[in-house]
């Protein structure tokens, strides 16, 4: 009887302690979730081989490329196919973007408002590729709720601009609560009008981190299926020679 009482007391104490702990464990804040996403997805460098499928009104177009990048501010891409685009190279270094086209054998800097043009007719603009500021640098993140997307529990994060010079005044992000990978992202105008939506799927574990291998970018104001970006091969923290991120590498 004595042991039974002790066991019961222990059980009651344990249950109360767990309940107390659960009541007091504060849910993750928006900032913490974004930091966890960054921690999962950021790498010293990465080499990606990908296909960009641009869904047009009449036909689809696929552009494949290989990209070497260090952090978010240095990247070098070479387009591999189709034949018309093959050999086109793009270099992004410290906020500047250059494009080399083999047809003209010239390198031009994409600057100012040319950055707002579409990349190879896709739903992506050069500017979308250029904005390498961290989300928490330009947005206040707020954890507003939870939702299930594709059977996975997600945190909903609302990002409101805290600086003036951002393209999207607010963003909404659905982050996988377990893997800390965004599964959906929506970009809004100042008026609250939804402008663009990105869906990320085919999440795979690569080198110990979860990474979306398929992304669909969609300008929701336009008809059509948007632009699909499929990663066919990805490698993190590789040896990348420094000369790749120079203008001279564009003509090689």
């Amino acid at each position: 009887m004595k042991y039974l009482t002790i066991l019961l007391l222990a059980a009651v104490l344990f249950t109360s302690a767990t309940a107390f702990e659960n009541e007091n464990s504060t849910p993750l804040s928006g900032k913490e979730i974004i930091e966890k996403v960054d921690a999962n997805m950021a790498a010293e460098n990465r080499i990606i081989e990908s296909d960009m499928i641009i869904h047009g009104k009449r036909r689809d177009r696929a552009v494949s490329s290989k990209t070497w990048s260090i952090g978010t501010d240095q990247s070098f891409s070479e387009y591999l196919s189709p034949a018309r685009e093959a050999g086109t190279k793009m270099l992004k270094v410290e906020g500047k973007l250059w494009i080399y086209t083999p047809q003209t054998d010239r390198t031009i800097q994409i600057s100012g408002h040319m950055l707002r043009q579409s990349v190879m007719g896709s739903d992506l603009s050069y500017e979308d590729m250029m904005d390498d500021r961290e989300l928490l640098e330009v947005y206040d993140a707020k954890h507003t709720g939870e939702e299930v997307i594709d059977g996975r529990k997600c945190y909903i994060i609302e990002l409101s601009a805290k600086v003036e010079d951002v393209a999207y005044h607010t963003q909404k992000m659905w982050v996988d609560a377990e893997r800390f990978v965004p599964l959906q992202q929506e970009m809004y105008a100042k008026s609250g009008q939804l402008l663009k939506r990105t869906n990320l799927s085919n999440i795979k574990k690569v080198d110990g981190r979860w990474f979306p291998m398929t992304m669909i970018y969609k300008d929701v104001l336009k008809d059509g299926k948007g632009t699909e970006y499929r990663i066919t091969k990805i490698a993190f923290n590789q040896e990348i020679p420094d000369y790749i991120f120079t203008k001279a590498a564009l003509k090689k």
Partner: protein
Amino acid sequence: MLAFKLAFKNLIGAGLKTWLNVLVLSLSFVIIIFYNSMMDGWDQQAQTDTIAWEIGQGQLWEKDYDPYDPYTLIDAHAPISPEMKSQVESDALVPVLITQASVYPQGRMQNILLKGIPSDQQLLDLPTSALGTDGDETKAIIGKRMAEATKLKEGDKVLLRWRDKNGTFDAREITIANVFDNNVPSIDNGQVWLPLSTLQDMTGMQDEATLLVTGSNYVPVNNENWTFKGHEFLLADLKTIIQSKKGSAAIMYILLLGIALLAIFDTQVFSIFRRQKEIGTYIALGMTRSQVVKLFTIEGGAHSILAAVVGAIYGIPLFIYLKNVGIPIPAASQNAGVPMASEIIPVYGISLILSTILLVVIAATIVSYLPARKIARMNPTEALKGKIQ
């Protein structure tokens, strides 16, 4: 005088041959006048319409504004100074703010120029009174070409997306309050007009403009942000286009004139060859060789006088008719980007008519003189005998 009498007698006597030459030459007359009067009419109409709809008595451009480089637009705006503001109030200046944007008619994206203009302006013919506010609705006006391209009509709503001065996207629905008919594509193609104050609020460019249109009562202001562009500069492209069109049209009537002159030349060569006895007789009767050359030259040149008369017989009624009804221009040409009405009213200037007559008469006289020179080298005795020389 005798030479003229003889020349006309000989010409009339030649019958059908003369009238065929005269007919072709008169066609040249009529076509030269038709083309040039059409071009002058177009020039006049295009200038009048451009002044009335777009440029007024000139424009003040913000120093960075370059209409041929849309990338400059984001920086090409400046505050309207107080002294300019007082002129804006008296309608001596009409501010226009320009920015890039996109509209999404029927789920398609179309890049446009978004222009803000005061809804109460009277200086330009744009129907800006339709831009008056009505609750929260944002009213816009578009030209007929833009309406055709976007399949938008009056009362339609369309989503507009733009960026403010910081580059942040914004979007809202606008209502097409008016679709205006006009002949000036540069205020129509790919453009949406909004009330100036609305666009200033939307972009955060309060009290700013990209350019100001000046009226006749505009008093020049000295401001380093703004550069005045007069008619000479603003209409220069239009004049160059019309001049080049005139040049290409000239090829056609030069060909026609060439055919007519060739026929006169041919007739002259044939006359001199066939009429050797006549030439010999003239010389035998006491005419000098140069008098005979003059006679034949006048005879050839007189084709042009007859052609002017014949051309006038059927040309004048035709020109009067065209002046009344205008020359219809195909719709495709009106969308070519140059101001052009659906009907061009030709302008017949006295200088145009006189210069055309002079051109044809001189050209006909020259081609008549060239073969007639042979007469000067003729042996009169041989000519009298009709021996071929």
